[in-house]
């Protein structure tokens, strides 16, 4: 038995324990993700200083300039500098993603806690969550955003709603486990108030899977927001988002491929970075979690 256990795990030496941060920084893919996402974040934060041109300024004599020659990533159909628009687009695209993480995190956690902790609420809350999950996320987000009208705030609402069931389920699952643990039972037996037990015992234990989940939701949100913007129900032009930049480039794809290409690359790198961060966090914080996608 022992020899097989050893053989199966390949653990022949006692495990070395490091603090979480140190283990994270030894995780190669996590660090790669951090660098990718970090650079995109830098573009967004420092847009005012690093963007060489005004992202809104149209110069008709400069239309369709290819990358190089004074314009790093070329110019678009209105002669606007694509690199500058990309930097300011990062602001909105990442900003919407981050807002979704916050709104979704707060509501998803609250619903998950209530469903997991109070049995009476569980049944119907989870039925509603199941029904919301029954729709493809992007389709539902498109429908909600279309109903509410195109704006950044509405995109945040639409995306938060469609991803809430995922967050709520993860939190609920942890609550169901933690609730039965001896120390929580003891706290209840000693007459601990529900709210106090939730905040003192249950929430901290749900944190690891929650952080992993929210990292992936950030990735989905950036991806889904680009679809919303691409189909015209995201923040309306001329304000640049990566999605609406690609939408504008779509019509000129034959002559000026760079208009659509660079914002798409930015989305790829951001989402890739976030996925790598999520995988790394999961490996280190919560190795039991399986791949959660969809």
């Amino acid at each position, binding site marked *: 038995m022992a020899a097989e256990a050893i053989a199966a795990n390949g653990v022949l030496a006692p495990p070395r324990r490091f603090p979480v941060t140190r283990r994270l920084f030894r995780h190669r893919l996590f660090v790669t993700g951090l660098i990718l996402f970090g650079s995109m974040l830098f573009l967004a934060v420092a847009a005012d200083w690093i963007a060489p041109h005004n992202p809104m300024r149209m110069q008709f004599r400069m239309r369709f300039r290819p990358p190089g020659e004074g314009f790093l990533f070329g110019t678009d159909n209105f002669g606007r500098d694509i690199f500058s628009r990309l930097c300011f687009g990062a602001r909105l695209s990442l900003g919407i993603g981050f807002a979704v993480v916050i709104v979704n995190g707060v509501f998803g956690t609250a619903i998950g806690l209530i469903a997991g902790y109070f049995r009476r609420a569980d049944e119907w809350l989870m039925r509603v969550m199941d029904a919301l999950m029954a729709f493809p996320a992007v389709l539902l987000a498109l429908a909600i955003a279309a109903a509410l009208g195109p704006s950044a705030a509405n995109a945040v609402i639409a995306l938060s709603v469609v991803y809430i069931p995922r967050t709520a389920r993860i939190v609920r699952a942890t609550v169901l486990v933690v609730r039965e643990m001896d120390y929580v039972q003891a706290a209840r037996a000693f007459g601990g108030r529900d709210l106090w037990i939730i905040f003192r015992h249950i929430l901290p234990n749900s944190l690891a899977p929650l952080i992993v989940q929210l990292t992936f939701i950030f*990735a989905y949100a950036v991806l889904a927001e680009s679809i919303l913007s691409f189909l015209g129900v995201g923040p309306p032009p001329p304000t640049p988002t990566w999605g609406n930049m690609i939408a504008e480039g779509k019509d000129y794809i034959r002559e000026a491929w760079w208009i659509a290409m660079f*914002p798409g690359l930015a989305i790829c790198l951001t989402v890739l970075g976030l996925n790598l961060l999520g995988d790394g966090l999961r490996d280190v914080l919560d190795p039991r979690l399986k791949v959660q996608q969809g």
Partner: protein
Amino acid sequence: MFWYAARRIAASVPVLLLVTLISFSMMHLVPGDPAAAIAGSGATNAEIEAIRLQLGLDKPFLVQLATWFGGLLQGDLGRSILLNRPVWQAIVERLPITLPLALFALALTLLIGIPAGVIAALRANTWVDQAVTGLAMLGVSVPSFWLALMLIVLFGVHLEWLPTGGFVPFSEDPAAWARSMVLPSISLALLQIGLLARITRGTMLEVLRQDYVRTARAKGLPGWMVIGKHALKNVMVPVVTVIGISFGLLLSGSIVIETVYGMPGIGRLIANAIFGRDYPVIQGGLLLTGTILVLLNLVVDLLYAVIDPRVRYGR
């Protein structure tokens, strides 16, 4: 098995009712007067009033819901405002375009995703594994509509191997039809291929560690039988779920893919409805996909029980 199936079917009924309710409520999310929003900013009062009457928006919410639900029971999804024809008819007409597209993409997903995941797991921590996991990671990070555009630039514009868009009906020219399907199917499938490869790899690694795989080896079974029979059947349990999820992603993915390639399918119908605030079509599309996915999940659950006999008795 019978009782297991009966329980699963009974449990999906309330979910289906909620799906219906959510689909219907979509129109009432519109801030202010939905009739005015649908008619557009340039509409006259008379036009707005006509729409209000056509959609029954003058009646109380519950009456509207009951009317809509009554229509549903008779197979009536309402009338499209833009197309001025029944939603059901509009969807059925476009099925011959979207269905083959989805099936091609699904076939690509299964034929590439599962083998790639299995091979990566068998060659864990080698360059093969790293290549597969890297590509899979990339696959789940690329926006499909952008990939579609880039494929058009590469294969359509530069190499001129494949058409840049448009749709040729099968009856007109089967060869051209097949060529017009290549790029859209690939664009649609990439995300799911990545997803399925990742999950297959993870599950396979888990299964390969199990004692029964060692037993199969100890019995002296050839390698292909150990992997292809004993391991793979256990891997299929979670993979079947992913295929269910995949189908949902294919449906929503077709909205952008059909838009980019200019294919007049169901995805394009829904995209146009979203642009043009054609709420009956949006409602119908939501209801249909939601229902299909709930039923698909039901089928997946029943398949589970067929693959893994423990499930029949467990829950």
